[in-house]
């Protein structure tokens, strides 16, 4: 058992074991539960870090066994999986800290944290999956482990949102299963391989391969919230803040986008997908989602709903990035996977702080919140400007890379999409920032809670601060080695034979 095999399994096991232990814990043992949670999160981060370091040195981590005749369960750590695993590892640690503070005295915490770590285990599984089948396995586990989190509150609205969520995701899963089974029937088991498998596939397969691609994208599009399949996301906002932060910034939404990245890069191969004419269709859908998401966000009154629609539009940047055939554009799309995660989780943390400390859920209740909670408001402002793409923050790097990538490949309309969506982002984020800083507080806060000297509990204030620092550094130090942009470049160089 060389360490090469051990690490991916260990990384997966930490959160799995943590969830089992937490489930067994009785409700009242808060201290132990927090300890286990943080320990598991820290351990996982260390393991992922070691793997990232190993992969940078060119080592290979893979474990595989035959699950069904002709079907292999493969866990493989490569540069692309480390991007996602690293992101989810870091943000899980922060969200756990946040969740401990957020659910201070609410019921069902054993259940919550159990499914919480199960959800992260499946996210890591999605990241480390070595072939389409293993990806599907963890993809579905992710659905199951996130349902209890969405309905955690147990209110009527939460249950309805949960029902919607299940209908969307399970149907997507069924379509995905159909596509994978069909693909498996056609060409047998497909490990993820740089450059994909269908570079020079014969004529007969073109028809079915196109249909399979559409099915795959539809199945993955549900979680990546591409337009026609995005209905569940805004409704799932009824979940508690750490859930919507981790799910909609990192776990669920990114699993869909990550799946699309895997399919386009390592199953079909960018050149093959382009040859089949699939990428242009995908690009159009992604572009439409970007604009649609931003336009819908304009009209939302509830803060978290606005952030949800913003997520819908931002995730499609990643998908759009894939369709820019040039290495620069693709790297831009990939790095946005990390940037959007950091920026969006900051915004959700702040939204959660406002809800938890001042009882604010609607945007027009935010007047004067800047004075009452300066730290959170600074984090929100920086996150908002990052989303708009204002330099020198992370969002700008993505837009810059994608823009120049699109121009080198001659897809000028992408620049127009980027500009229009940035305008729309500004249109729905800046009024909120205005209310934070420049509007006077007219009515008293709906449910104000005091925490002595700090504006809110220490557990709630530190995670957004840390993610804000990441957000600024990811933008400012984009050219450093081991920065997200640099790692995306490494991925493109290794994994994507353009």
């Amino acid at each position, binding site marked *: 058992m060389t360490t090469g095999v051990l690490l991916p399994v260990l990384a997966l096991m930490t959160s799995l074991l943590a969830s089992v232990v937490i489930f067994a814990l009785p409700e009242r043992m808060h201290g132990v539960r927090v300890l286990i949670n943080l320990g598991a999160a820290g351990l996982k981060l260390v393991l992922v870090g070691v793997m990232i370091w190993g992969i940078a040195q060119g080592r290979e981590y893979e474990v595989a066994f035959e*699950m069904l005749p002709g079907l292999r369960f493969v866990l493989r750590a490569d540069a692309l999986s480390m991007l996602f695993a690293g992101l989810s590892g870091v943000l899980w640690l922060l969200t756990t800290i946040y969740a401990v503070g957020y659910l201070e005295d609410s019921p069902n915490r054993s259940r919550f944290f159990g499914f919480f770590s199960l959800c992260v285990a499946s996210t890591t599984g999605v990241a480390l999956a070595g072939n389409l*089948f293993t990806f599907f396995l963890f993809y579905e586990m992710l659905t199951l482990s996130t349902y209890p989190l969405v309905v955690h509150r147990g209110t009527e609205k939460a*249950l309805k949102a949960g029902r919607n969520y299940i209908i969307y995701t399970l149907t997507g899963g069924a379509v995905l299963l159909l596509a994978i089974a069909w693909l498996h029937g056609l060409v047998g088991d497909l490990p993820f391989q740089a450059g994909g498998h269908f570079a020079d596939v014969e004529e007969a397969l073109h028809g079915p391969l196109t249909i399979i691609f559409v099915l795959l994208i539809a199945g993955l599009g549900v979680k990546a919230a591409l337009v026609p399949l995005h209905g569940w996301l805004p409704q799932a906002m009824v979940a508690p803040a750490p859930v919507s932060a981790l799910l909609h910034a990192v776990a669920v939404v990114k699993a869909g986008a990550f799946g699309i990245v895997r399919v386009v890069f390592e199953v079909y191969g960018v050149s093959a997908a382009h040859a089949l004419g699939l990428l242009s269709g995908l690009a159009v859908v992604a572009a439409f989602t970007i604009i649609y998401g931003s336009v819908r966000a304009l009209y939302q009154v509830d803060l978290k709903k606005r952030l949800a629609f913003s997520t819908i539009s931002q995730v499609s940047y990643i998908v759009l990035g894939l369709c820019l055939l040039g290495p620069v554009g693709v790297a831009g799309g990939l790095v946005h996977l990390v940037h959007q995660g950091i920026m969006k989780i900051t915004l959700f943390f702040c939204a959660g702080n406002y809800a938890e400390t001042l009882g604010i859920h609607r945007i027009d209740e935010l007047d004067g919140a800047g004075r009452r909670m300066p730290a959170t408001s600074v984090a929100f402002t920086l996150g908002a400007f990052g989303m708009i793409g204002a330099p020198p923050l992370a969002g700008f790097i993505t837009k810059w890379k994608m823009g120049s990538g699109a121009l080198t490949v001659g897809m000028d309309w992408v620049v127009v999409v980027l500009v229009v969506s940035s305008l729309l982002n500004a249109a729905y984020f800046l009024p909120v920032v205005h209310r934070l800083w420049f509007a006077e507080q007219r009515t008293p806060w709906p449910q104000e809670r005091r925490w002595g000297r700090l504006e809110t509990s220490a557990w709630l204030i530190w995670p957004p601060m840390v993610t804000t620092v990441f957000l600024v550094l990811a933008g400012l130090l984009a050219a450093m080695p081991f920065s997200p942009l640099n790692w995306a470049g490494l991925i493109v160089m290794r994994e994507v034979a353009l």
Partner: protein
Amino acid sequence: MILWVMAGLLFTPLAWAVLTLLTGFRHGRWISWLGIVLQALVSVGLWAFVTRDGGFYYPLGGWQSPLGIELRVDGLAVTFVLLTAVVAGACGWHASLYLDPEKSWHRYFWPLFWFLWAGLNVVWLGDDLFNLYVGLELISLSAVGLVALGGQAGALRAALRYLLAALLGSLFYLLGVALLYGQFGSLSLSGIAGLLESGDVESVPVVIMVLMLFGLAMKTALFPLHKWLPPAHGIAKSPVSALLSALVVKASFYIAARVWLETGHHMGGYALGQLLGALGGAAVIWGSWLAFRQEKLKQVVAYSSVAQIGYLFLLFPLTWNVSETISVQAQQGMTLQVISHALAKSAMFLAAGNLILSVGSNRVDALAGVSRFLPFSLFSFGLAGVSLMGLPPSGGFAAKWLLLQASLASGQWWWLAVLLFGGLLSAAYVFRVYRASFVEKTDVDEFYHPHRSLEVIPMILALLSLGLGLVAEPVLSVMAISFSEGGGL
């Protein structure tokens, strides 16, 4: 050595049945635990023996056929014997803690339980069609007895309905066997198959196969003939309904599958295969729809059995004159479906029993707040649900995957719709139960917490069913054990 193993398989259950008849329920419990352990050992012994020497024919007590009973032991039979050992053992252990010893008529539980187990072993190992009929009758009568243990009028009505349906089914099957014997002069299944292969006796009209399959379908509660199952499985005590749903229903299907696989090519027809597949598909859709609409928790699980049985009948169209590899794939899919359904359904029924015991009412919407105070049983119910939905990594998923591949390879793409849509529908009724349990009703915990070990058994079964997907490879290798040339003693 094989003598002891075979004797252990068939005669010890009968002996245990008589022993437990003499003692009451309380003492019967100890004897049964011993018996369960013995049966498990014997089953494992059989499996070890078969893996070493390959499948064989075994004339019971040395009497040669056709008068003597000849048993046929191959990979498929061994898999089912092991499955029975696991599920029946678990249900027996659960029943011993679950059933209330004070009730006088519960003392008949153990004898019926052991008769049932003996009948099952006869059916798995039997090769002679008439012996299979006797085995079937033994199973049916003991199952009816177990259902009647409920004691109220409702339970008795369900038992009677079940009895009549089962008897009718057996008679149709017997009629088919009689006509077969009239044509071939032999009752051993492999003998008939040999005659058909060698072609010296030309095949019979398809009506005989229809008769036999109609009888067996009646006993397996296939879609149009399923009316008796939900009341019987719904009203019986949960360990009993677990046994019924997981094993008894599969016995008649096992015979139908054996007949179809051995002689289906000659005696069956493409139309018959497609009809059975279509009925299976309809069962999946209709069963799931009704399961979604039931108010009572155990009725939901019962109708879910009707739906899941539908999947099994996809075997017939997928193995009718298709290439060897596809047929093997379909058989593997069917076996995995049987195993995973048996484990998951028994886990679900036992968990449902625990939930009803602690909630006090058998309605689904009475489950409010359960996820907060009874997370463990709800979790085992959930895991079993995951396997029923066929989500990875459960055994249900592996079965669905193999059936998907088989239907794709054989070009019958319409079964894809049944498989995928069925998965979604089963998700519908499982999540309906989840939804009810997540409703926050009160802050105070006024649920009755059953004995810890009562909750452990369904969890073990659920985990087995969930893990089945990961260990599908070795399980299927057991099934693939072929006959050794010698057919040794």
